[in-house]
């Protein structure tokens, strides 16, 4: 059964009403969002700086504590031995990088 003309009119009005946009652009809203974004950036930078400083402190402490044992380790070693050890360490690092690099393409 076809809809009554009143129903059709009501349906058209409802479509118009639902299609309306409720909010208009508001510059204050944009400013508030950007202010919050900047605040978040600042706090992120602060956290990063604080933890970086902490890491650097611990690194420095470790270097001071380990300087003497490391110096003792290398005292009296032949230069060729050190070179061979460095070469071996380099090769191990290269193998590690190669084996962990699994970003291969699946396409032909």
């Amino acid at each position, binding site marked *: 059964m076809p809809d009554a003309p009143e*129903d059709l009119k*009501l*349906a*058209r*009005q*409802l*479509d*118009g*009403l*639902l*299609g*309306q*946009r*409720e*909010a*208009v*652009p*508001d510059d204050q*809203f*944009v400013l*508030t*969002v*950007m202010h*919050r*974004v*900047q605040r*978040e*950036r600042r706090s992120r930078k602060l956290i990063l700086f604080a933890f970086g400083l902490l890491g650097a402190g611990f690194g420095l402490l470790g270097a001071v504590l380990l300087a003497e044992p490391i110096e003792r380790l290398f005292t009296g070693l032949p230069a060729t031995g050190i070179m061979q050890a460095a070469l071996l360490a380099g090769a191990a690092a290269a193998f590690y990088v190669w084996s962990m690099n699994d970003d291969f393409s699946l396409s032909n």
Partner: protein
Amino acid sequence: MTSDLELAARVAGSDDQAAFQQLVQRHQAAIRGFLRRLLAGDHGTADDLAQESFLLAYRKLASWQASGSFSSWLHTIAYRQFLQHTRKHARQQVMADPPDSGFDPTPSMDAEILLPLLMRQVGPEERACLTLAYAAGMSHAEIVDVTGLALGTVKSHIFRGRQKLQQWLKEHDHSLQTPGTDPASEARHA
């Protein structure tokens, strides 16, 4: 005009604040309007959730996959914020008065008052589907992406939601004053 994709790439790549500001300017009305509709006229909460949505978008911009539109992605974030908010406040909502108790809508009511009232007649999912379809002009597929609902559910929500609203309007004998439907305004424009 610079595309959303280019602006988003600038934000993700070099943390370009001006680019993000442009994105906020471009999409704020749509997102705020969407949330206002979902929250049935609670403008304050809607704007708060819109702010949270943009902030979340800023944090997660690097993870945005440009397969869909930026607007759809923002609507998805806003919809999730709304769901989270609804879950948090579910208890208060249950305890609150029924939607239109003690309110007698008068005929020829202004659309600004009538719209929130209408939105309270349907469930949150129906509100979301109706708003995305009509106000945001999204396709059914896009609504599926935003809401995470099945295509059939989206179609049914739109159909049933619209039927409910039409029935409610009929029962309350309304004549709507929407732009272009006000007889006085039509006469003025003629």
